[in-house]
């Protein structure tokens, strides 16, 4: 299927090998087509955020004639995006902290200690992690624990969904760390916990990064949990804010909506482009095992 292979199958033609060139051309044109299908709507969204309502209708494909920067000011004010960004930040960082702390310790125990029921516990997690949670008992639980409408409740709700996957990622990573390291630390007088914290964790950057990205992106983009658990305007994260704003003003002021969407998306895209290798690895790590 590669260029080299194709040329081998036509050894009789003299001169330039046209076929590999055509194959490469074909590959590139298909890939470019699908890249454009992905990237263009996102670019278009950013361009549209600088248009006036009239331009959105009269000038669908072109660049904005006179960039309407005020869309951003209006969006920021009306949708209270500052507050929403802060909320999303608190919730996402909170979820990362909870997941990394709890799952790393647990993952280490599953990787390095042998104890009864460890396999059973892991199996229960494998079989239940994908299951859709019945939302009524879930919601009632949060009401009874007085965890609705709070950062902590939302963080725990999001973290509990990611913990199993994070445990598996940490467990796989810790398995790959040679046991001598831990033994050496213990001979030096470290307790098991100290060995973990001072020797193992400092060399576990890759696993921590993978789990952090996975959790952060998931929490930042989470929509259903805040929809279920958050009531007051002040605690709404970005996703819920956008949706509420869309319902209120969407039909009338699409240009402002696009400014809102751009504010929500551009920071994530910038970070993603710089750290793309880490993002792609982190977000697919649940699916690819070696």
């Amino acid at each position, binding site marked *: 299927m590669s260029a080299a292979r194709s040329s081998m199958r036509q050894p009789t033609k003299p001169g330039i090998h046209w076929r590999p060139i055509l194959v490469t051309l074909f590959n590139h044109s298909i890939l470019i087509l699908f890249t454009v299908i992905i990237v263009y709507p*996102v670019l278009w969204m950013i361009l549209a955020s600088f248009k006036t309502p009239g331009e959105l209708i009269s000038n669908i494909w072109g660049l904005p004639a006179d960039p309407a920067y005020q869309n951003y000011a209006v969006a920021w004010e009306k949708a209270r995006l500052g507050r929403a960004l802060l909320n999303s930040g608190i919730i996402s960082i909170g979820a990362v902290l909870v997941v990394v702390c709890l799952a790393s310790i647990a993952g280490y125990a599953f990787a390095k200690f042998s104890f009864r029921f460890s396999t059973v516990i892991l199996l229960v997690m494998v079989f239940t992690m*994908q299951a859709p949670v019945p939302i009524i*008992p879930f919601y009632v639980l949060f009401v009874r624990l007085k965890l609705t409408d709070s950062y902590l409740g939302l963080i725990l709700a999001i973290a509990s969904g990611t913990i199993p996957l994070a445990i598996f990622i940490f467990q796989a990573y810790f398995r790959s760390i040679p046991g001598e390291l831990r033994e050496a630390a213990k001979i030096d007088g470290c307790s098991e916990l100290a060995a973990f914290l001072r020797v193992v964790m400092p060399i576990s950057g890759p696993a921590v990064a993978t789990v952090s990205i996975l959790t952060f992106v998931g929490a930042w983009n989470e929509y259903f949990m805040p929809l279920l658990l958050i009531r007051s305007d002040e605690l709404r994260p970005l996703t819920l804010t*956008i949706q509420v704003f869309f319902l209120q003003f969407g039909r009338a002021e699409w240009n402002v909506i696009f400014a809102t969407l751009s504010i929500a998306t551009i920071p994530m*895209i910038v970070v993603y482009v710089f750290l*793309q290798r880490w993002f792609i690895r982190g977000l697919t790590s649940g699916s690819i095992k070696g």
Partner: protein
Amino acid sequence: MPAAQKPGNRPSGALSRRLSKLSPYLWILPAITVYGIFKLYPLVSGLQMSLLRWDGIEAPRYIGLRNFEKILSDPMTGAVLMNNVHYAVGTVVGKIVLSLFLAILLHQALKGRTFYRTSLFLPVVMSFVVVGVLWSWLFNPQFGLINSFLRGLGLDFLVQDWLGDAAVALNSLILVDIWKWYGFHMVIFLAGLQSIPDELYEAARIDGASVWQQFLHVTLPMLQPVMIVNVTISVMGAFNVFDIPFIMTAGGPANATNVMALHIYIRGFKFYRFGFSAALSYVLLVIVTLVALIQLKLMTSGDNTD
């Protein structure tokens, strides 16, 4: 031999021995507690709620299996489930075919691989809310990008009311879902392709296999593990889908895009039928479990016959 040193809890005294016996459980306790309370407990406690007639305010009344009877006799249940099945078939076929095709193209020695990979993966880091709102406008019948594009090409017969026409709306949502995820599945296929040893292709070529035969007899069988992963993820996604229909169509028009997760949410939080909604959740849970088991069986049994 190496197994002997692996779980080494080397005891250095009675106290530490007892501690080390207890300690693994202490290490896993925080994570298991959070998971147990917020994930496992609702899975179990809802069973009792599914036997109630309850609006969340007044005292619940025990009505036995009446909720389940109602679910089974309600024509809405079947219609909603068929939407999930339709959604699953559409998204799975679309995502798998497209992402496998692109992964094979990208697997060649091409310039700009990182660029393509990064661009195609982009929607994965975007929120479904952003994607849903953006596509609501792209699908706008008068001013949306899609219809404007089709008119520009002179393909006026393809112009649709993408989200307003009950015959089309679900397919439009499927397109958005495919758009958001095909880069993700492509990356997974790419990892699978990279793990296939070159010698297999060389051997096939020496046997005179064509490019297509190589694909059928080397690539596809070797990709089976990642194929299972990709199909499982997309099927599960299709049966749990909520964000896209909730944001883009709210289940309409005329329930054409109403799916189980949305149905459960609306019964629970719009009509305050908590018991009925809880019962519906278990119907979905059973169906998802069955689908997962059947799928696992089908995909692993294919392996044995080879």
